[in-house]
């Protein structure tokens, strides 16, 4: 990794000109320039890397947001869009001499259409706020990142965020119908539509997951899903991680797509049990949570089928949630896994590779070996159904060279994911954190194609520069020095 916040320098004249212009465009409360006001914006959830921006703009409406973009564009000043700052890859880390465009004040739910099952919302609306607004109609917004109480739909779109229910209900990309986007020059484009498809290329697919580098989302129309009548979860413990991994494949082979299918290894279980007291089996090497939702009859049928598969796969203990409170308790631990690990270590890095599930045993064994080599502890949380693995590397940044060792270990884990045919990031994005591992996953030509696409939206490369797609030079450097195994 060896990430660092991107550098961008502007001269003094430009700096004062753009600041004066922004001050004229925005009310005083919507433009932050003082050190102590800028401080809260110096990083996102990837707290190991910090950078103060030149200014933070907090527009309250589209006209102001567009005016900020135009001013920055004219003066050649970089812009970093920001939602709640919960991103884990440094996507919202400021660029020095750049402006952070916070969408925090865009927090209105503009419309909920229960018959059409859609909601039109501003980008700063929190993920759970959408589901709350839809709840009276028996509907909800399905993608449920564990950070959903805090993170915004704008950030979700930019990262193509997932959650524990995405195996059955899809990722952000499957649940967005339309985006109103401002390009860096202030031009507004509507991408997608209120129908299921729009004419022209599928630019919605490109915008989702583009990490704030192509345009600023000013409005999103999302799909709402009918709330299932009931949900129930089976918790299975295994005395062997490999058995648990095989059990996941067996469930899929039995023709079942569970509403959620998650796994935690022993260190992760220990950390969360101490935090939420969900009653997890602490002696198990791995715990699987498999959820079924639907009509009561359907759930009963599916839970019985999953129990049978899990038993046959060698689960040593099975518990089925008996009521909603217990179901939420079983999930609480999984959903609080990151903060729980955060409690037992001064610092941690959260990895995010996706692997073909069949390589799980190999990958976990390798991770354990690597962790030992780098002298660090690692807990593993796994979106087992879709192969998205979150190794949590624990370290103490105040110990000389621990951050360095942690990032090295992270790099090796990401490369391992690519080696087994997977990817360096399943849902957290590349940001600044994994930008160098992009050189491992993609060829020079593929990276060129990404740069060309970026320039189709942002020719001056001012939106979130230095993130997500490395320059060819950075890759040659990395290939020479970085990936020695």
């Amino acid at each position, binding site marked *: 990794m060896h990430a660092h916040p991107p550098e961008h320098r502007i001269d003094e004249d430009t700096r004062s000109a753009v600041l004066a212009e922004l001050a004229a465009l925005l009310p005083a409360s919507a433009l932050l320039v003082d050190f102590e006001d800028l401080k809260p914006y110096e990083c996102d959830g990837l707290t190991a890397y910090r950078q103060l921006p030149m200014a933070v703009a907090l527009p309250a409406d589209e006209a102001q947001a567009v005016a900020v973009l135009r001013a920055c564009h004219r003066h050649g000043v970089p812009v970093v869009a920001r939602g709640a700052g919960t991103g884990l890859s440094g996507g919202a880390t400021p660029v020095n001499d750049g402006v952070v465009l916070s969408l925090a004040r865009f927090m209105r739910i503009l419309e909920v259409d229960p018959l059409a099952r859609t909601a039109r919302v501003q980008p700063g609306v929190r993920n759970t706020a959408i589901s709350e607004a839809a709840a009276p109609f028996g509907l909800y917004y399905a993608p449920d990142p564990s950070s959903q109480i805090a993170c915004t739909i704008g950030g979700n779109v930019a990262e193509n965020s997932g959650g524990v229910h995405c195996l059955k209900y899809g990722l952000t990309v499957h649940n967005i119908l339309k985006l109103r986007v401002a390009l860096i020059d202030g031009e507004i484009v509507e991408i997608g539509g209120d129908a299921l498809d729009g004419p022209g290329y599928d*630019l919605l697919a490109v915008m989702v997951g583009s990490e704030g580098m192509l345009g600023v989302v000013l409005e999103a129309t999302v799909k709402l899903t009918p709330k299932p009548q009931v949900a129930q979860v089976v918790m299975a413990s295994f005395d062997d991680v490999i058995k648990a991994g095989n059990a996941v494949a067996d469930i899929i082979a039995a023709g079942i797509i569970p509403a959620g299918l998650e796994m935690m290894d022993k260190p992760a279980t220990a950390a969360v049990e101490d935090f939420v007291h969900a009653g997890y089996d602490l002696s198990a090497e791995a715990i699987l949570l498999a959820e079924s939702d639907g009509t009561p009859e359907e759930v009963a049928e599916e839970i019985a089928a999953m129990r049978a598969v899990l038993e046959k796969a060698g689960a040593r203990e099975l518990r089925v949630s008996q009521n909603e409170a217990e179901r939420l308790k079983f999930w609480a631990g999984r959903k609080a896994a990151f903060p729980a690990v955060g409690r037992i270590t001064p610092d941690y890095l959260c990895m995010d590779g*996706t692997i073909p599930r*069949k390589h799980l045993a190999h990958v976990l064994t390798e991770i354990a070996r690597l962790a030992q080599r780098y002298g660090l502890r690692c807990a593993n949380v796994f979106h087992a159904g879709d192969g998205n693995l979150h190794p949590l590397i624990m370290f103490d940044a105040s110990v000389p060279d621990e951050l360095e060792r942690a990032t090295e270990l992270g790099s090796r884990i990401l490369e391992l994911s690519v080696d087994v045919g997977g990817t360096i990031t399943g849902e957290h994005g590349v940001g600044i954190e994994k930008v160098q591992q992009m050189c491992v996953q*993609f060829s020079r030509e*593929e990276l060129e194609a990404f740069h060309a*696409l970026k320039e189709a939206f942002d020719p001056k490369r001012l939106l979130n520069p230095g993130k997500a797609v490395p320059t060819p030079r950075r890759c040659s450097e990395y290939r020479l020095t970085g990936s020695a195994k």
Partner: protein
Amino acid sequence: MSDLSQQFAARIRAAAGPLVLRGRGSKDFYGNAPQGEALDVSGHRGIVAYEPTELVITARAGTPLAEIEAALAEKGQMLAFEPPHFGEGATSSATLGGCVAAGLSGPRRATAGAVRDYVLGVKLLDGQARELNFGGQVMKNVAGYDVSRLIAGSLGTLGLILEVSLKVLPRPVAEATLRFDLPEAKALETMNQWAGKPLPVSATAWCDDVLTLRLSGARAAVAAAVEKLGGALVAASEASQFWAGLREQQLDYFAGDEALWRLSLPSTAAPADLPGATFIEWGGSQRWLRGDIDAGHVREVAAKLGGHATLFRGGDKSVGVFHPLAPALAALNARVRSALDPRKVFDTGRL
């Protein structure tokens, strides 16, 4: 299994003008008339990898869709977006590459998603004959811009698809089809109301004041829904014939040479005030219209209802097959196209 990628690369390098990519031609009817020299890609075929427990299949673009569906069926799985083949005769000629490039989805689209929702990765030859991989063979992947989904529906105008990886799903255990006598407005309202309930609806079709509804899922869920919704139960063989006929547009409604318009609308849009017979799918989101109706008028009505209109089959293509884009969006589309294909090797004008 044959790998023709080197041959294709040579053709691309030698191309003096645009190349019109073609599988077996089952979707020749679709899109604007392409300009350029034909390049048959159907010989590049074969399933590269299929692992049922990973829910992923990877195959070369020329692989017949029928071959892929047969391989999946053997393991109790399917392409959930039910792509239409539109092949002539008994044995379909449709290829996987054509399916992804055309981006067309079948009856299950409203509830299961479209082709693009199942594309996990593509291997392309770009206009400079470079082999590029985007996405991958895993379910979740946010490294780099999502070029693989962008390719879905691009009608061969961005690059030559060599290989595609798709997410697959288990076939539903149980299925039932119900019929209801309902006029258009009432049918639209009913479809939308039911779509907002936790019911296992997997397809809807309305025509001639009859709403046909398919339920798919767990045995218990389908049985409970049949009980709850009422209507007339359609015999299984008749039902499967009906849905296959709809998917392939072989029902009576689609017969004949009259122009066929496709209106893509918000599912709740009021019945379109347009002449011609209507057939509604996708819970109200996809509406077909027969007849030589003035293109400008159809598009105006579709746009007012919040959607767009495509001249799907027949008619006079000189009016433009696809709905014109707003100027800013059109300019962005053009920039994206030339970003990925600066030499204009795939600029056939088909989209």
